[in-house]
Every structure is written in structure tokens, then in C-alpha cells.
């Protein structure tokens, strides 16, 4: 028995002639902080969609805690603790921030089929929702309608909802996009405060974030895994530099290594 929480083995997917996942194998251990990087259109978001069940697998197996969930519906996977966020915010725009999180809390608690009892009496659930919002600094906007939130706050809310689902594995698709680099810290702090046993897969184009967050980095190129390794290993690889990081990325990264 390994301590692999999530195992994706030999995943395949293509859109017509375009192969977006070619024999992708990826393992996440309990508590692992794993980053997924790669050029645009490499298939990173597709991989998250395959793992979360939004797209049907073209081949391969997905094991969560040893159980094959490759054929389960997205909602089953969520219930089993595999939770994702979206690259482009995907929220309940007409509801308030609190209601958004409450929905997640109530689903997670299995309380969403309570037909008779008024929601406001579920103080335990409401408190939990508030608690999560505070954690991400969204307490002040709890009663704001989501479609009136500034973009950055919507990104934080995405995370809040994910946390409310008490994930075992968290898949984050560019969670810091649109948040100023100076503020991405809030988000990373929130991730740091998560229970350590949660495994997180983070897609990110900002190398500063990757470096601060990840212990392992996987590089995906044209649907294939190019390499997996520690941040330093990956970022000093010639190949990764040429297809993804570029010269500037390299120098900028170098200067950061120097800082660290």
C-alpha cells in the first residue's frame, strides 16, 4: 500500500485529431503540494477536467485512495473529496458570497435534501461558511451578490467554495490569475493554513507562486509529461526553458533563487 492519494494512470484524451492527453500518469501523495506547468494549450486544464469528471476519459484509470473513480460522475468525485476550481470564475452569480459558500457547506454535510427546516436555522453550517470566508478575507463582502464582486475577490471565493467541500485532493486551475502579484500572498497563505494532509495540484504560469508553493513540479507539453521534479530541477532544465520559461523566465527565476 502506497500513500498515493490520487493516481492518474495512462490518461488519454483527444479532440478530433488533437491529442490533449497522451498517456499521462500523475501521482499525488497525501499532503503533497504539486504544481503543473506547461505551455498554453498543453492540456493542463483538460487534465483537471478529466480528473474531476467534467470531461469523459478517452483512456486510462483514475484512482482515489485506491478506488477507481474513472467512471464516476463529477458530483460523486466531489463527494469523495476530489475538488476543483475553475480557470475562469464559475460561481453562482445571483447569490450572495455567503450563500455560495453555504451551498458547498450544506452539500458537504449532506444537508441539501432538507426540505422543511428553514436554512437560517442551520447555524452550525452558517458559522462554518462564515469561518471559511474570514479565512480568505472575504468576511466583509459576505452579503454582496457575487456578480458585483471585483474579479480578484471572485477568485478568492472560488477557493473558499473548494475549501468548504473539505477536500482530500484539491485541483486549482490558475487560482492567482488576476490577483496582483503583491496580493497573491493572501491566497497562498490561505493554502498554507489548509490541513496538511490535503494534496493540492496547482496549475500556474507565475513562477514565483510555483516556487513558493510547490515541492514537486510536473511539466506538461502537448499532452505529454515532459518531466517531473523539484522546482529547482525543473526550472533549470534546458528543455523546460526553451518550450516554456523563455529567457526572461530563466533570468527572473535565477534572481529569485538568489533571493531565496
Amino acid at each position: 500500500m502506497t500513500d498515493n492519494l490520487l493516481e492518474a494512470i495512462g490518461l488519454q484524451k483527444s479532440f478530433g485529431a488533437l491529442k490533449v492527453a497522451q498517456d499521462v500518469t500523475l501521482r499525488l501523495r497525501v499532503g503533497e503540494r504539486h504544481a503543473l506547468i506547461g505551455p498554453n494549450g498543453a492540456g493542463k486544464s483538460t487534465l483537471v477536467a478529466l480528473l474531476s469528471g467534467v470531461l469523459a476519459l478517452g483512456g486510462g484509470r483514475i484512482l482515489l485512495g485506491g478506488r477507481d473513480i474513472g467512471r464516476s460522475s463529477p458530483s460523486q468525485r466531489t463527494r469523495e473529496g476530489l475538488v476543483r476550481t475553475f480557470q475562469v470564475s464559475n460561481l453562482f452569480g445571483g447569490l450572495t458570497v455567503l450563500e455560495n459558500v453555504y451551498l458547498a457547506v450544506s452539500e458537504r454535510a449532506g444537508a441539501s435534501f432538507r426540505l422543511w427546516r428553514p436554512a437560517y436555522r442551520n447555524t452550525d453550517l452558517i458559522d462554518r461558511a462564515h469561518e471559511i470566508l474570514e479565512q480568505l478575507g472575504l468576511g466583509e463582502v459576505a452579503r454582496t451578490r457575487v456578480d458585483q464582486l471585483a474579479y480578484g475577490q471572485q477568485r478568492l471565493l472560488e477557493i473558499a467554495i473548494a475549501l468548504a467541500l473539505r477536500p482530500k485532493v484539491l485541483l486549482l486551475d490558475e487560482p492567482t490569475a488576476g490577483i496582483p502579484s503583491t496580493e497573491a500572498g493572501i491566497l497562498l497563505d490561505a493554502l498554507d493554513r489548509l490541513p496538511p494532509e490535503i494534496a493540492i495540484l496547482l496549475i500556474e504560469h507565475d513562477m514565483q507562486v510555483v516556487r513558493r508553493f510547490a515541492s514537486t513540479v510536473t511539466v506538461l507539453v502537448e499532452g505529454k509529461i515532459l518531466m517531473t521534479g523539484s522546482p529547482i530541477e525543473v526550472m533549470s532544465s534546458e528543455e523546460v526553458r526553451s518550450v516554456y520559461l523563455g529567457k526572461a523566465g530563466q533570468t527572473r527565476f535565477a534572481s529569485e533563487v538568489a533571493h531565496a
Partner: protein
Amino acid sequence: MKITVSSTGLSALDRPRLPMIALVVFALALAVFFVFPDRLSLAAYIGIFALFALSLDLALGMAGIVTLGHAAFFGVGAYTAGWLALAGWQEPITGVVISGLCAAALAGALGPFILRLTGLPLVMVTLAVGVFLFEAANKLTWLTGGDDGLYGMTFSPVLGIFEWSIYGTTDYLYVLAWLALAFYGCHRLTTSNFGLALRGVRENRLRMSLLGSSVLAQLTLAYALSAFIAGVAGALLAQTSEFVGLEVLSVEKSIDVVVILVLGGVGHLYGALLGAPVYLLIKDMSKEWNPHAWMIIIGFMLVFVMLVARGGIHGVLHKVIARSRGKLPNGEPR
């Protein structure tokens, strides 16, 4: 598909305010009993449509199921009540419950198939299912009486005490009681976790399923609950008119009820209570004045509500009240 829901500015997680409008409406409804004793037939008819519209609000307003085929459940309820009575089961209250259950069973059976759809495909399929049932009822004359309808049924007095009469006294109070009961039930339902989950489904179905919720099951349950109430309304029509005609299954009925709900305001239950009397009274009056005018009037009302008074009567009332109290609901322009 998105639908416009008139905003109350109240979060589902606040303690619900006393449903003032509902209390006022029910008080008015009771007053009608004393003030217009010679119009109770119409009043009962209005009550039945308010109930039908309420059922639609559950499906449309709460769960976002846009349907042009809700008459299917109304009709099944009506025919069931008719068949029961013709077969000798004349007790009205159990008749209503059984009819509602039959309608709910149909919705429960259909739901898993058609509720996968959204948007115009859903509209089309509900429409087609409605037409299909109508045509089937037309063909199955041995069962439905076809164009002649089901007739010659009688019902025993309500609770064994209240006799039916052409003055509509019993009819009206009986309908009103069912309406109040259903309204209370729906109110509980919409303020519950389930109600909030349905709003989530309406807003963003994919996201909801990624919260781990069984969206199809939630929708089907909502659909069946809604169908139950629609079936109850249909059964009440059968019982108060002692007749069931094919038109209970017609597309016109389905459209009528959508129009009633939209005039009243979608999504807050009151819409049904407000829309039914306004719609049917205007219909009644304008027909006495000039029958052709009715189509034009209702046409203009729809255009008006959609272009100017979004949110229907409920929405307008709500704004007026909010303005008079000097505060506006969250996010609405002043």
C-alpha cells in the same frame, strides 16, 4: 436557461420575514367570501389557477425548469379525480391527494429523462410531451371521453359536512384551504436548504454538480413536488366543476399558467397569488367589454411586464414598498 426572478433583497440565510404580501392576499381572499358572495365560482376558479401557478413557480422560479407543458400534470390530476369519482370514490380530500400523487409519479418518471435538458431543447420537449398527452387523451375516448370529456360525476360533501352548490361557497373555501396549505408548504420548501440548493442549480448547474450534489435527483424531486401541486389544482378543478374536458391538458393551459406566473412575478411564490386574480379578472372584465380586446390586452400586458415592469406585480410592489421605506434591495438601481 436564466430566468428573471424579482429580487426581495433578502438572503436565504436570513430569518424569513413574515410573508406580509401573502397574509394580505389571504386576508383579501377571505374578505371576498363576504363581499362578493355571488362571484365565488369565479373566485374558486382563480384560486385553482393560483395553485397551479404556485406549482409552476416551484418548477420554474425555484428550480429553473422552463416548461411549456405543465398542463400535463394539471390534466393528469383532473382526470384522476374524475376517474376516481366515476369509479365510486367520491370522498374529495383523499381524491385530491391521490390525484396529486399520480401527477407526481408521472413527473418522477419523466424527470430523469427530460430534466437533463436545459434551455430551448427543454422548452421544446416539455411542449411536445404536453401535446403528446393531449393527443393521447383525445384518442383514448373510452378512457377520457375524448372531446365530450368526463361527466356525470358527483362528490360527497367536504369532510362529510359541507355540501357543494352552484353558489360556490364550499368550492371556494375548499380551494382556499388547499391554496393556503400549499403556499405554506412551498414557503417552507423554498427557505430550506433544498430550496437554496435549487437556486444554485438554477444559477449554475455544472458548478452545482461539482459541489457534489445530485442535480438530476434534486431537479426531479422539485419537478415531482411541483407536479403534485399541479395535480392537486387539476383535481380541484374536476371536483368543483364536476367535469373534466380535454382542455385541461392543452398547450393553452400551459401557456396561461406561465403568463399568470410571469405577470405576478417569478420566484417568490407570491407571484402566483397576485398573478392569478389579476389575470383572470382582467380577462373576465375585458371579455365582457370586447371579446377580441382580450388577446390584445394580454399581449400588451406581457410586453409591458417584460419591457418595463420586470419582476411582474410582485417586483413592482416590492419596489414601491422598498422605496416608501426609503431603502432599496441589494443592487437594484435607484
